[in-house]
């Protein structure tokens, strides 16, 4: 624009126009905490993968044993050690699910077996497909139960400790410190030695020390909330306790709680498997993923599928929970909100 043109600007343009701009423009619609978290979780590919795998594996664990006409404990030695055979997929050679053993001998044809065992059968002729999903069911049951009970105890203990503070808090935290000092594994082993291995004793053993982590988190959040300026601010403004708890406390405490629980589950799945390895796991004929992997090692050289399939399932399960936990942690942390 030249000087001349500048002079020729219409005088109309120089009329006052204050207030024409919209001052309180809000860039985007405000979202509720949960909606916002969900939007962020959805963008995280790993977390969505984790979520889907967890759902699929859980569904299979619940329904696959029901849907099969075989069960996990009936032995039939004439059907023992059949390699996996899955129709359609049997044509994909590298998967080795064509019913042939490692020397390329078609066992199904030789024994004249019509039925397809998708994951093969174990040394006692039990359908491995049913056993794997039954095992997943047990592993999940133990892990989820342990995580939920940890959650309950942790919330109550941590809540009381954080809410009252002072001397109560001090004593309660000393107790936790000593408990944390005891290696978890040692307690678990001693406990199960006394109360024979079984689903409930394994869950209980995990809880004995497991709850302390949750309690510390809840307490920490409680204390932080009590200090926080926005809580003081709403108190000063006369907000009722119920409003404080509902609007401020819950959204701020729930995030860390959900995330911690998400990470407790894979930890518990691992611990259960670990117990199977040291001979303190689920007793046969029951199966868990850990006991199946442990049994699989006996046939490493001859029937590797008995090791490989449950190994993949347990890894996939732990991986999915971890990915989902990571995603939730990122999604639920309002400080990351941009």
């Amino acid at each position, binding site marked *: 624009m030249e000087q001349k043109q500048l002079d020729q*600007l219409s005088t109309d343009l120089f009329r006052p*126009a204050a207030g024409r701009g919209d001052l309180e423009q809000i860039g985007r619609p405000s979202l509720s905490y949960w909606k916002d978290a969900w939007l962020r979780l959805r963008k995280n590919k790993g977390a969505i993968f984790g979520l889907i795998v967890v759902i699929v594996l859980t569904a299979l664990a619940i329904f696959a044993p029901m849907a099969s006409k075989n069960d996990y404990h009936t032995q039939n030695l004439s059907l023992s050690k059949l390699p996996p055979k899955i129709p359609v997929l049997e044509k994909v050679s590298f998967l080795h699910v064509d019913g042939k053993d490692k020397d390329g001998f078609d066992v199904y044809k030789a024994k004249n077996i019509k039925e397809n065992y998708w994951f093969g059968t174990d040394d006692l002729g039990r359908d491995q497909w049913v056993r794997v999903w039954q095992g997943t069911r047990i592993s999940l049951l133990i892990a989820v139960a342990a995580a939920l009970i940890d959650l309950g105890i942790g919330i109550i203990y941590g809540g009381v400790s954080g809410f009252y503070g002072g001397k109560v808090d001090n004593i309660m935290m000393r107790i936790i410190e000593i408990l944390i000092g005891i290696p978890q594994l040692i307690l678990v082993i001693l406990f199960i030695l006394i109360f024979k291995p079984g689903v409930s004793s394994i869950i209980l053993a995990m809880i004995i020390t497991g709850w302390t982590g949750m309690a510390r988190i809840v307490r920490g959040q409680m204390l932080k909330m009590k200090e926080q300026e926005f809580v003081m601010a709403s108190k000063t403004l006369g907000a009722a306790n119920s409003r404080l708890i509902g609007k401020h406390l819950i959204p701020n405490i729930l995030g860390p709680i959900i995330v911690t629980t998400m990470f407790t589950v894979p930890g518990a799945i691992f611990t259960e498997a670990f117990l199977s390895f040291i001979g303190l796991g689920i007793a046969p004929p029951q199966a868990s993923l850990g006991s199946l992997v442990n049994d699989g090692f006996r046939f490493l050289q001859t029937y590797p599928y008995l090791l490989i399939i449950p190994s993949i399932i347990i890894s996939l399960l732990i991986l999915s929970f971890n990915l989902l936990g990571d995603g939730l942690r990122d999604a639920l942390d309002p400080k990351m909100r941009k």
Partner: protein
Amino acid sequence: MEKVLEVKDLHVSFDTYGGVVKAVRGVNFDLKKGETLAIVGESGSGKSVTSKALMRLIPNPPGRIAKGEILFDGRDLAKLSEKEMQKIRGKDIAMIFQDPMTSLNPTMKIGSQIMEGLIKHQNLSKSTAKERALELLRLVGIPQPEVRINQYPHQFSGGMRQRVVVAVALSCNPKVLIADEPTTALDVTIQAQILELMKDLQNKIDTSIIFITHDLGVVANVADRVAVMYGGQIVEMGTVDEIFYDPRHPYTWGLLASMPSLDTSVQTELAAIPGTPPDLMNPPKGDAFAPRSSYALEIDFEHEPPMFQISDTHFAKTWLLHENAPAVEPPKAVVEKRRTMPSNFAKPRLAEEVVL
């Protein structure tokens, strides 16, 4: 006077997932030898980004100097390689940051942090560097430097730490010192001490200072000239007197009117500037300040104003200086203090260097 640094049409952008944020949009200024230029503006006005761009300290990605020149010593800093730039940083141009609590390395002794630059830029031996570090600590007023030199940052108070940061910055006698809000994080009494120290040292080593701040009170104390930034642009620039006693831009009026001072009469109301800074991802059409200004004209929403010149040293970027613009009455606080500037032109001219 000799120009030390000249910035021409500087643009700095950040590439984010949401789009390109144009944090600095065409900034022009120069810095003369031995003078102090204050850059004033609210958070998000681009003042800090400008100062970091001069040092080429904008993290890339996401940030980049999109356009423009930074002329220093006959060289364009915007085009230097990282290696060449490292030779200038700390030696010719030094910087002081806002928060002394976090700007020193917590696991390194104070002495080593001062000596580092000396060893790098002046090829001093360890022992001479240590001598010089002691001298610097004494210079910035740290008692018992022999003891302090072997201590860690957490053993220093905030004000003492900022003194150390000043010592680090001045270690190689830089030609330009950029101080990015150096007193914001400090107590008022400490603030005054640090400002006094900077002024003192400026006289001793003849450095030019770019002083970034949002605090106009500080500006009056230290600056020779003032640049007011808004929405990534300089909207008004002039000597301290011109900015304080004869401001022309409505945003500067707003800043001055919102600042209390001892001679503000009790009746005068402190005025806040309504609204929030512009969204620099989609800067508004026309004058970025118009939506918040009670002096906005129709044209502000259509065309970006050019830079007008009121005197040799005084520039303002507002349509109110156009001859067709209606005469407006600035806020009371501004009018009360207004003085006539003898060096003003008869009427505002269009600044030549600005091409629309």
